């Protein structure tokens, strides 16, 4: 309703406090990162950079996709009214509420090759030959263990965000759709999904960013192994900066990571955001 040309300087006051806090806390370190970054040429010859980047990207895509699917299901379930919904909502948020590092240890326990419940349960269900399965010893099962633990942990984040999006969908549209002959499934695809699009965009972008930065879980669960197959970029950056003390290169890696994320975020935003009418 107001042309951008008319917005006064006063309007920036709404944004100023937030910008100030972010500027002081986040911007300085970021400048610092750029200032310290160097040895970019090493990116090209670093034999670990590309495998790590590949793992990170693939983990990001796989986990976020699964979370979105599961999160949607959860959001829809938690959205419908039923007795005890509040409690179930709280229960569902518990994975997100548990400290990551601790829960990562719990998962290590669960996937433990000797006394892990995962193997035991699957064995009891007749799905494995022995209760002792060394999940984390095998590159691909370790990868999927990380996916499972991460999806488990972060799906609630998706789910609550999507729920807030569901709240913005006027109920009358479902009525209109029902009159138009749409059953529950069709209603989901023609009303819920499109109108959820902006929320999905935000949720997916922020989830992708943090999935890309996946650290604790890998660090604790597999340490990047076996054979470096589950190492992620931020574990690597952590190593480079804090353990190898190669600050310049670590910052360069960070810049590269931010660069990839910019592309990823741009792709996601353009994929998921069509111009929204009000």
């Amino acid at each position, binding site marked *: 309703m107001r042309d951008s040309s008319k917005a006064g300087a006063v309007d920036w006051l709404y944004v100023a406090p937030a910008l100030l806090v972010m500027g002081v806390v986040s911007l300085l370190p970021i400048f610092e990162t750029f200032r310290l970054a160097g040895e970019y040429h090493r990116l090209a010859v670093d034999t670990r950079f590309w495998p790590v980047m590949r793992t990170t990207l693939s983990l990001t895509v796989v986990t976020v996709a699964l979370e979105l699917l599961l999160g949607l299901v959860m959001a829809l379930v938690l959205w419908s009214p039923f007795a005890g919904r509040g409690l179930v909502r709280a229960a569902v948020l518990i994975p997100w509420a548990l400290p990551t590092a601790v829960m990562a240890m719990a998962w290590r326990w669960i996937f433990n090759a000797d006394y892990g419940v995962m193997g035991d349960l699957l064995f009891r269900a007749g799905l494995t030959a022995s209760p*002792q399965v060394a999940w984390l010893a095998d590159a691909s099962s370790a990868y999927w263990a990380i996916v499972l633990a991460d999806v488990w942990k972060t799906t609630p984040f998706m789910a609550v965000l999507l729920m807030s999006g569901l709240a913005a969908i006027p109920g009358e549209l479902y009525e209109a759709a029902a009159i138009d002959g749409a059953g529950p499934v069709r209603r989901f695809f023609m009303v819920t999904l499109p109108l959820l699009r902006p929320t999905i965009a935000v949720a997916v972008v922020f989830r992708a960013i943090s999935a890309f930065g996946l650290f604790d879980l890998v660090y604790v669960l597999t340490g990047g192994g*076996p054979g470096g197959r589950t190492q992620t970029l931020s574990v690597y950056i952590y190593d480079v900066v804090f353990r190898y003390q190669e600050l310049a290169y670590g910052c360069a890696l960070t810049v590269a990571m931010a660069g990839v994320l910019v592309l990823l975020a741009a792709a996601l935003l353009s994929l998921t955001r069509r111009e929204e009418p009000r």
Partner: protein
Amino acid sequence: GRSEPADGKVRVRYLASPDVGGFSKVIIERFEKANPGIKVEMIEGPSSGDARENMYSTAFMAEDDAYDLAYVDVAWLPKFAAQGWLRPLDDLLPPATAALFLPGDMEGSRYQGKTYRLPIQSDGGMLYYRKDLLAAKGIPVPSTWAQLVAAAKATQSKEVAGFVFQGKQYEGLVCAFLEVVWGFGGDLLSADGEVLVDRPEAVAALTALVDAIYKDKVVPQAVLTYQEEEARNAFQEGRAVFMRNWPYAWNLMQKEGSPVRGKVGIVPMVSAPGGRPAATLGGWGFALSAYSRHPREAYKLAEFFASEESQKLAFLQGGILPTRRSLYSHPEVLRAAPHMKDLGRVLAAARPRPVHPRWPRMSDALQMHVSAALSRQETPEEALKAAATEIRAAAAR
């Protein structure tokens, strides 16, 4: 910067793991009583060593004088020293005193000829074995790799694995691997920094490890996920005949209710005919922060902790292995813990990991490729060749 308090006392600060037995507090109390001008602030950090290393790094990178002393793992030392974060102790520590400590611990406290650390707690890898199971089969305690494999084969069963060690991709794997390499007469770096990782001795060592899993089948594949505790649990629950681990496991296995209580023996890690048994040195000690404004007072505290009296207290109350040789034959100690004699033998043979400022990167390369070999993603030759390439690249930089 930090402000000095008004009581006129000099503050000495350091970060350590939580003071579980409470003995650190006792020692500090004693110290403060003896040195009324000094106030010690022990900051209890997270119990994870990685986390504390990170906290120290963060503070030092910010050139912060938050800590006067750094309670450092032997593995951190080269890096910390190379960054110039630590102040050499050579002017404070007379050689005669240094000689009273376990040689490995002192060696691990040096970097490029200078001493940076006063060892407080010793640690080293060793082979635990089930006395009862070996005795039942009449098998003697193995001292070579072949004997170990044979003994494991002979004693293992469906429920009881032959041999377990730390096989997850992390620093512990390198420690375990290193012991085998040393046992096979090889090494990772020569004294003058030459990379020996892809030498035949090392390849033979790794091949032996891989074969132990897949050919001899005396090692369960699960060791690829093992850290110290997984291995100890397996062994303590009676699910393994041999185990490579640190001394800490001993006390736990001798606890009331432990299934293997009184059935465990310790020996140095086995070696190949041409090699000599060795233990990878672990252990902790006090280093002096280069940013400290009270190095003398701080060193005083370190010295106090390193004293025989304090170390005895720490051992008796907290199971902290002393770094002073004398304590391994101290009657009071032996009365409380007869196995200290065996331990003394092991630790006397303990060697530090290669001392190199880029050791963490080298170690990571090793971890990754050794892990890759153990999970058969690479052959031992490939793995060590690749690791050697990376290590050389790191060393050359």
